[in-house]
């Protein structure tokens, strides 16, 4: 991980696209983060409004506050109510073959947004970024991009409304023109201030941010949005991506474009607890989409950090500490039934339900999720990836 001397204030938590760490090995303070970044809290009124506008129950991530912050979501919803649609933009940095559940979260939510609002979606695979930051070869990062595309497609995106592209394939033409327009508006000092680059960082890194910025502008995709320069963009992402889009929103009005809106999520906790780090080198820190039912059972039973007490007697007396309990947190993300979750929290918190039972329920939920994903993944062929990634018109994208 990069050390960012000029950027890191020792006592503070660090949240940027390449590093996320809490203060003193504690938990991430999301209120402080919202404050520092300057975005807004997503409150219940938004959730209700989304439900009204889409005539369907809001996604579990909205109900549970997983997507908890936003920028200009109200403008998107206002425009939508007037009949002005928008498009979605999200992405992935393909740095490894194995995706874990945390990686899937923005995609699961984006699929819901696509279905609920009936809008098109562009998905950016930043193979160039990973080639630069992780020192992968160009070919390897392109290969990983394609492999990751399969897992992304397995999340259930509608091919008639979705364009997936990799930077190495797509950068050029109108996209590149926008990149230059953006680059001209951001000084070197500014980009150092936002991302913490140092004199030792190579120029590839310094010039990368515009690549992630310009998919927010419809003119970057002339084959999709030609003539629709006014189209707004909504970006679902994890909150660590906020710096890219702060920069983008700063530049947008200066080059005559709408500012993209954002809807941001919490970080997905590692199995060993909030303070632990999910890392590709520790397979026990996360549940992977390639895990078998046995793996999942093992990982949850052996490695999930719980808030249960040390002995059954103590547990019955004091109840579980829901603040740090990972199975409860994971159920918060993935158990659809609100009533059941409330019941579990109540019983477990009071000590009437044991950790083993909570873990058992979690294992069921996760196994079904992973199983469904794997079945969908098996149906994704190379030809399907080619079709999703082809520069082609999407005539029914707003239907």
């Amino acid at each position: 991980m990069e050390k960012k001397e000029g950027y890191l204030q020792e006592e503070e938590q660090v949240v940027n696209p390449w590093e996320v760490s809490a203060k003193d090995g504690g938990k991430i303070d999301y209120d402080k983060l919202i404050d520092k970044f300057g975005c807004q809290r997503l409150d219940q009124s938004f959730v209700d409004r989304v439900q009204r506008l889409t005539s369907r129950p809001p996604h579990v991530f909205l109900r549970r506050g997983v997507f908890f912050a936003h920028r200009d979501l109200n403008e998107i919803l206002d425009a939508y109510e007037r009949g002005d649609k928008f498009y979605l933009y999200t992405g992935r940095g393909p740095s490894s073959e194995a995706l874990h559940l945390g990686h899937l979260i923005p995609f699961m939510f984006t699929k819901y947004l696509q279905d609920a609002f009936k809008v098109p979606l562009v998905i950016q695979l930043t193979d160039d970024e990973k080639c630069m930051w992780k020192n992968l070869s160009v070919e390897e990062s392109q290969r990983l991009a394609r492999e990751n595309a399969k897992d992304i497609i397995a999340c259930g995106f509608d091919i008639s409304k979705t364009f997936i592209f990799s930077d190495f394939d797509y950068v050029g033409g109108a996209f590149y023109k926008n990149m230059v327009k953006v680059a001209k508006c951001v000084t070197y000092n500014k980009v150092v201030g936002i991302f913490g680059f140092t004199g030792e960082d190579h120029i590839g890194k310094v010039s990368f941010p515009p690549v992630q910025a310009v998919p927010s502008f419809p003119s970057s995709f002339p084959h999709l949005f030609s003539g629709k320069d006014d189209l707004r963009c909504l970006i679902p992402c994890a909150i660590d991506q906020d710096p890219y889009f702060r920069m983008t929103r700063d530049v947008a009005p200066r080059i005559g474009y709408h500012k993209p809106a954002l809807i941001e999520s919490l970080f997905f906790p590692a199995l060993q607890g909030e303070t632990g780090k999910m890392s590709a080198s520790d397979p026990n820190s996360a549940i992977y989409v390639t895990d078998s039912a046995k793996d999942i059972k093992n990982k949850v039973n052996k490695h999930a950090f719980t808030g249960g007490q040390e002995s059954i007697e103590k547990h019955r007396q004091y109840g579980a500490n829901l603040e740090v309990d990972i199975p409860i947190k994971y159920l918060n993300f993935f158990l659809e039934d609100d009533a059941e979750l409330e019941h579990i929290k109540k019983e477990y918190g009071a000590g009437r339900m044991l950790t083993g039972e909570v873990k058992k329920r979690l294992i069921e939920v996760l196994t079904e999720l992973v199983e469904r994903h794997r079945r969908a993944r098996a149906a994704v062929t190379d030809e399907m990836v080619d079709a999703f990634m082809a520069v082609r018109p999407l005539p029914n994208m707003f239907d």
Partner: protein
Amino acid sequence: MGYSKDQLLVRLKELQIDFSQYEHPVVLTVEAQAKYVGNMGGALSKNLFLKDKKNRYYIVSALGDTKVDLKVLSQRLGLGKGGLRMAPEETLVEILQVPLGCVTPFAVVNESARHVSLLLDQGFRTHERCFFHPLSNDMSISLDACGLDNFLKSIGRDPSYVDLEANPPVGKDQPPDLAAYVPSVSTVLPDLPEKAPSSQNSIGNHVSAAINSAAVTAKVVKPAGNVQNVKEKSVNGVRPLFPAADVGKFVEQLLDRASALLLSEISEDSIKQHGGQLGAEVANNIKKCLREDLKNLATIFKNTAYTEGFYTGTHYQPKRL
């Protein structure tokens, strides 16, 4: 059988690829081939059909005098030191659908070879013309690298050339430079032992009481078109390139889900509880629980059908004016 020599030659002519053909008695080696076409102004090629430990296959097509070191190649592909060996003879016929001694880049035209990786010697580019067998060893055809490229592109293959003699270091900080050539899917033949895909085994045991779980069936639900194993030998050799959007299978999946849920909803208890209203209650629950699940299945079906159309659309031959 797969593509025949004649079909290939017709195809080359249709694509307006310039080539010369020479018939000769059947040859099994480069030396034998040299006797007949060695002086015809084209470079001879040697073609290796290789396999790695994970049942992935490769065609290495090189100039006759290019040195090909399997150990080096294996490392450059990221397969470790002894990962590559010559593929067994049966696989030549099964996968490439060509006779012995006839390995050729053109073999990738066959659907059975769709997951075979093709490595072409960059030396081909420096020669005016090179010789290959056109799917049969009683003939050799010579064409230039451009012609070969055009053919490969026409069947959806990306022609890329490699310096086969290079020996770059491979280590922690130097990733294997040819890793991109490793096929993403292995080709498993019917008579070889194979691992059953785990998705078909792991759901059986989770009988969840919760209504929301639609995966609760004793019946194993097959994935919608599993291409991972080239298992069926079709009768006439012309297999679809990828699983077709199969309406029958799709409907079966929907019905499986619905009937599983139905069975779990109707029990002695629920009959007692709802009596005559059970029908309405169950119908309601089914809609609530199955909606998302069925939508997911339908999306997979839609995407598969779209892909079929896309592939066909990008490969059709425009009307001749």
